[in-house]
């Protein structure tokens, strides 16, 4: 089945948007249920069976609320920020291959594009915080910028390490390179780099930091900054930020699954398909939720120290090690 | 730095006696007679009557101190000083490792006096010292202890709130527990609440 190119793209875009919307809504449910289970509570139960309609009820509530703009805020930027935080996540997902032939666009520079758009997310949160003219929001905006500067670097170093192994930035090809059983996945590619599992852990930590997830949720530290950059947002303005958080987790976890866990490849070499990709994706998402409900928040300079003093040297070392290994073998 | 180890009651009594002798030196001896609970000397170890209650005071107070016997009281040593000597006594106790426990007032309306009660405890012993001082009820003024014990700052603000006693030299006597525009002092005995 081949549609003419423009229609194909439109169809995929609609698909991606639906996927993101549905996922963002239901990841909220997953998070709530997950948190509840970790804390031995039932979680949402009242709206629909097992509280499955809770995201809809939440959306209805948020939509029915007035969109307030603080009188001193920069109105344009204040309104623009929620849009800017959501759009890049959608863009990134357009290049993610879900299956062998299931992706909106297979770009040769797919990986580069994902990171290019991924950084806009931070800009948007910073703008939202800055435009609010709220002291808590401004502190939060300042925090998120320095946090992201610190974590982009080890993330990029890790990704470069990976690129040296795969030799391509096309996500489709990266996955295809990992075909034939779990020992072929990049995370277990100990020949190219004996520290590959560590690389994956560094990627995961950076991903948590980039998406502002606990224990690195400095921007939204609710016990310190009330709601951080989102303090002044009401109704769906807040709702969009909230959904974008999950959309970004989705992007981060998809990328993790593709780069390290072999994307749609089955662990046994046979029956590969989109199901495996989703399984890996949601396993990573579950881990993100699990981490959030287990740990306290890091201190801000502890976070920067972790990045500058540990993650960057380690990932640099891994980079060097990989290049040596690749040259030798 | 760990606080100085606790003085014994005897050492404390001796320190106070020395201080009292120093303070009382300029005053005429005859005036001291009769007003201190243990006549003759400022210091004694009596388990005698409780501290003067309403109506008992009236004459110019003269500093005295004594060891308190009996478990009922809950403190072991008490001293009555003049308002101007509060800071000195505070420093004397500070040097011996005491910690500030509380500062509060008692309104002896019938006697037309306000009593200030300073509680000190020792962090590493059971020793508890009470220092009292009486001032006229109207226009009550006492120097602040907050330069010796910074913790007295809040207690004094609270006491100012509740009794209207002015602590001279205090950095900030604005209402603390009461609303910021409060101009009443609820623990004065003539205060009738809104209810």
């Amino acid at each position, binding site marked *: 089945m081949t549609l003419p190119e423009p229609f194909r793209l439109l169809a995929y875009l609609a698909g991606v948007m639906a996927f993101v919307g549905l996922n963002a809504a239901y990841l909220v449910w997953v998070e709530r249920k997950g948190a509840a289970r970790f804390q031995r509570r039932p979680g949402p139960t009242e709206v629909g069976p097992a509280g499955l309609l809770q995201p809809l009820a939440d959306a209805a509530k948020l939509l029915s609320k007035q969109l307030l703009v603080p009188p001193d805020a920069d109105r344009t930027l204040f309104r623009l920020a929620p849009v800017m935080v959501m759009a890049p996540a959608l863009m990134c997902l357009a290049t993610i291959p879900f299956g062998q032939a299931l992706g909106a666009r297979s770009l040769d520079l797919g990986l580069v594009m994902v990171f290019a758009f991924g950084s806009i997310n931070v800009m948007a949160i910073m703008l939202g915080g800055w435009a609010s003219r709220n002291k808590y929001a401004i502190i939060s905006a300042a925090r998120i910028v320095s946090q992201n500067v610190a974590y982009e670097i080890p993330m990029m170093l890790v990704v470069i390490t990976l690129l040296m192994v795969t030799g391509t930035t096309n996500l489709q090809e990266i996955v295809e390179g990992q075909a034939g059983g779990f020992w072929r996945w990049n995370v277990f590619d100990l020949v190219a780099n004996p520290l590959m599992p560590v690389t994956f852990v560094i990627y995961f930590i950076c991903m948590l930091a980039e998406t502002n997830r606990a224990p690195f949720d400095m921007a939204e530290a609710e016990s310190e900054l009330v709601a951080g950059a989102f303090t002044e947002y009401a109704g769906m303005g807040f709702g969009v930020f909230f959904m974008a958080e999950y959309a970004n987790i989705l992007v981060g976890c998809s990328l993790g699954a593709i780069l390290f866990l072999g994307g749609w490849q089955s662990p046994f070499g046979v029956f590969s398909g989109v199901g495996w990709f989703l399984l890996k994706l949601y396993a990573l998402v579950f881990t993100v939720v699990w981490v959030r409900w287990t740990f306290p928040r890091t201190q801000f300079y502890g976070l920067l120290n972790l990045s500058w003093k540990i993650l960057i040297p380690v990932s640099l070392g891994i980079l060097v090690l990989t290049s040596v290994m690749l040259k030798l073998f | 730095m760990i606080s100085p180890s606790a003085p014994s009651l005897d050492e404390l009594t001796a320190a106070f006696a020395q201080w009292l002798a120093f303070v009382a030196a300029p005053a005429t001896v005859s005036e001291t007679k009769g007003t201190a609970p243990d006549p003759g000397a400022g210091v004694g170890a009596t388990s005698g009557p409780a501290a003067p209650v309403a109506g008992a005071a009236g004459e110019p107070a003269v500093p005295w101190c004594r060891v308190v016997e009996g478990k009922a009281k809950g403190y072991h040593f008490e001293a009555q000083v003049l308002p101007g000597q509060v800071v000195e006594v505070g420093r004397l106790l500070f040097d011996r490792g005491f910690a500030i*426990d509380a500062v509060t007032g008692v309104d002896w309306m019938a006697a037309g006096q306000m009593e200030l009660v300073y509680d000190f405890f020792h962090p590493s012993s059971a020793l508890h010292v009470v220092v009292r001082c009486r001032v006229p009820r109207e226009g009550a003024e006492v120097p602040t202890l907050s330069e010796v014990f910074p913790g007295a700052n809040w207690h004094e603000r609270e006491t100012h709130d509740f009794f209207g006693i002015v602590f001279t030299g205090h950095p900030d006597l604005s209402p603390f527990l009461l609303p910021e525009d409060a101009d009443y002092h609820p623990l004065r005995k003539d205060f009738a609440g809104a209810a």
Partner: protein
Amino acid sequence: MLLEKVQTADAAAGAPHETFVLNLGPQHPATHGVLRVKLTMDGEFILRAEPVPGYIHRMHEKMGENRNWSQFLPNTSRIDYLSAMTYTHAFVLLVERAAGLEVPPRAEYLRVITSELNRISSHLVWFGAFLLDLGGFTPLLYAFDDREKILDLLESVTGSRLTYCYYRFGGLCNDVDEAFLSGTRDFVAYMRPRLDMYRQLVTDNIILRKRLEGIGKVDGEMCRRYGATGPVIRGAGVPNDVRRVEPYSIYPELDFRVPVYPEGDCMARYLVRMDEMEQSLRMVEQAIAKLPEGPVLGKVPRMIKLPAGDYYCAVEAARGRFAIRAVSDGKEIPYRLKLRTPSFCNLSLFEEASRGMMLPDALALMGSLDLVIPDIDR
């Protein structure tokens, strides 16, 4: 100090220097109640923190001057609602000592059992809330699960879950039954592995350690100047515990350790409280094993009158030294009641201790002081 480094670097770079005022509270997630802290900040550094309490001031002291001695009893559990038992204990102790009332031994043992259970429940709330300040949500729910078991036990005896008002002058208002004693024994057995679980989940956690170690230093000298007591002073290396230095009730007969950590940082205060829960369990265990039979209420006159004079009585509440100073003029209502509450004094050192700290660290410091706002405001 970090702040000085930053300021020197700013000055060297000729950067414009600005400070701003941040109102933390009166409604803020980290103040656990209605406390306002006026912060003067330089970036994320605190130059000056000025707590503004009083939002829930109820004037308990004036109430005390308007009702007789026994009518003030219910008030005592409402000052610090998390450690109601110990506060009531201070008040009944004061009156019993002053009026020379006899307390039957069984009542004394039950007082210690309930007080120590109450202390554990109070520390559990602190534990949960403190972790919440640090951004860890889940331990709060675990702690509340355990606390619920204590509240059930205490409710079965006192009829109330928070404002117990269980002690009376000369004893207790009613005796406990076998179900309470066996329930308490079960709880002690249940709680020990839970404390071990908290150690693994929270205390050993590297993130927590990095956040608390070396943060919010308070030394014994500072505690003394401000009159800070309880876990704050014990976390600064001074073994000050009223149960040990001025023993009351049957505490001298029990074998317990006063946990002391010399570091004076948030971690030390944290560890003191965690150890205290263990010690309280031990005390409960011993007191139940030794619990004598007999009445729980001694002979008490119908209307209590204290001889004229002033009385002072301190106990070790969950937050530190709680003391009542009562002045009696011989009538049936107190002439003056002064409540010396531990949170009040513990918070007063915040201004000095938080100078130059970063905001999240200052909140960790505030959490480690374990404030109960009604206890400050009274």
